[in-house]
């Protein structure tokens, strides 16, 4: 039965249902215990599962990530909450050198079914060290899967798949999405990793967007629809593996491609999507594809500057208009 839930409640429900189903699943991180996490992602878990399975940790990202790697190697399914993606730099050896590589270098003998959860993105002037969107870093590391849900329904179905996956998964929660609402089924369900969803159908232009940018792009699409521009919005939902087929099919239909990315431009996710489309569907493109990203700068603190560097619905609508003007 579906009902309306907030993103954070859907995420929590997915984790809780997996913890009920599989006793090897546990959560650890700074503040996940009685406090229930920064954004209440694990609220009630201590009472329900005890502190063995909902473990507060020191602010010790390297040790937490490493404990997740080791526990996963020995057969558990840990969920390590690293809070902000910006803090994951402190854990990057364990995520990138250990978790990502151990299955391979052990020639398949050892699996690392760990989930590393991190919040990402723009949020209330959090400034340079609390606003990161560096999912492309993790996409660039063979051995990791990267999940970026944009809706409550996806948040639940994708965390369930992330937990069940036999390899390490980086699961990214955009801070501005946590309080958004949507329809979510009560029973446990898994959305497979590597399957995109067309969030809005259209005929003139394909916009590929992830995470919070899906929401902003949908708002932009509504604005330009009244001007006669029909935008198709494709949400890859997982960036590694990613569903190139759905993106290519959409571009073959519309003939135009824009990638909206809250990450940075250079060697970013948008660059990959555009490269893939050019390699495989150049003939379908009626005009050069574009990417629209956060400006390549340190994220500033003060709101006017912060708003200036990030994409948003109004700016996305302008880019769409300019593409349609140029190519119409």
């Amino acid at each position, binding site marked *: 039965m579906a009902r309306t839930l907030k993103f954070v409640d859907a995420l929590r429900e997915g984790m809780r249902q997996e913890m009920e189903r599989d006793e090897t699943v*546990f959560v650890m991180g700074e503040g996940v215990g009685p406090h229930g996490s920064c954004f209440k992602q694990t609220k009630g878990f201590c009472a329900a599962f005890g502190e*063995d*399975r909902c*473990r507060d*940790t*020191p602010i*010790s990202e*390297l*040790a*937490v*990530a*490493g*404990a*997740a*790697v*080791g*526990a*996963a*190697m*020995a*057969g*558990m399914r*840990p969920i390590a909450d690293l809070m902000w993606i910006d803090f994951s730099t*402190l854990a990057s*050896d*364990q995520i990138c*050198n*250990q978790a990502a*590589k*151990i*299955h*391979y*270098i*052990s*020639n*398949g*003998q*050892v699996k690392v079914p760990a989930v590393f959860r991190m919040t990402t993105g723009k949020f209330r002037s959090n400034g340079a060290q609390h606003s990161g969107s560096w999912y492309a870093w993790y996409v660039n590391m063979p051995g990791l899967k990267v999940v970026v849900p944009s809706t409550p329904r996806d948040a639940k179905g994708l965390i369930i798949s992330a937990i069940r996956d036999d390899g390490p998964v980086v699961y990214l929660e955009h801070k501005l999405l946590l309080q958004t609402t949507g329809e979510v089924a009560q029973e446990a369900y898994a959305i497979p990793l590597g399957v995109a969803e067309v969030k809005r159908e259209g005929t003139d232009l394909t916009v590929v967007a992830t995470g919070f940018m899906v929401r902003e792009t949908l708002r932009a699409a509504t604005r330009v629809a009244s001007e006669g521009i029909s935008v198709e919005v494709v949400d890859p939902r997982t960036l590694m593996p990613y569903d190139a087929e759905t993106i290519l099919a959409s571009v073959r239909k519309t003939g135009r491609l824009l990638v909206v990315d809250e990450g940075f431009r250079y060697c970013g996710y948008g660059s990959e999507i555009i490269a893939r489309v050019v390699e495989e569907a150049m003939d379908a493109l009626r005009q050069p594809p574009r990417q629209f990203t956060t400006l390549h700068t340190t994220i500033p603190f003060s709101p006017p500057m912060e708003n200036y560097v990030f994409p948003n619905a109004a700016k996305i609508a302008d880019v769409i208009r300019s593409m349609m003007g140029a190519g119409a």
Partner: protein
Amino acid sequence: MILMDTETKINLLATMLRIRKVELQVAEMYRQHKLLCAPHLYEGEEAIAAGVCANLRRDDYITSTHRGHGHCIAKGMEPKRLLAEICGKKTGCCGGKGGSMHLFDPAVGIMGTVGIVGAGIPIANGLALCARLRRSGQVTVSFFGEGASNNGAFHEGLNLAALWHLPVIFVCENNLYATSVQVRRSTSVEHIGVRAAGYNMPGVTIDGNRVDDVYAAAAEAVERARAGGGPTLIDCETYRIRGHFEGDDCHYRTEAEVEEARKRDPIAYWKSALVGEGILDEPAFEAMNAALDREVAEAAAFADESPLPAPEDALVLGGEPA
């Protein structure tokens, strides 16, 4: 004083000797260009791996280092699978995907030697946490060098292990050199063992070249960990006889220093102790020596004769797509 039976005493000697012979074989294979990557050899430190692992069950876990061949041998990896891996052969313990610095054999609890200094420490905590949650009685040993004890992974790892009373034994091999940097130039304390106090866990500093001392310290730590008494830091003072890697010109130390250290050879020490006790004589030692020579020669032949992986095996793991 921990008592050892005669069989254990003899086995400790055999393990140390096996490690020594395997390492000298690796050095020879490197000289013959049978492996490309310069290996990091364990000569002179054998008493630590042997003395610690003699206290472990088959299903206990270890994590190890770039200088990890000795730990793997002591924990039960077959020398032929080790040598084949180091030579990049398909029959190696990781099918040639790991190499000298990334050795795994989960069937005997070897959960990885790591090429990143200190990285095995936080992983050991996770292995131990799993054992604790499952009440399996397993313990985990993390081997690392004094260089790692200056690294965040060590400090974060020891704090978490003590906080959670994890069944882990942290075994520091202070061989005086972190690559080329002498311990006095890198480390704020004289003995790494004192660092345990900062994390409210027992810590001891012992002579890592005396396998009886290592065995006794490890026995106590393993017993404590299995009984739920939490982690221990064992600081084993030793000496890295060879360079950081084969081919290292070792300009940062004198030949005289190395010769002095050779006088404290752990194998000579233990052999003489056993002879003194009357449980080993020269013919018995020669028999052991000859048997191990044969074993290592066979392992080397296995590695030599084994096929290289096919290039496309790069994208296959144990028969499955990578």
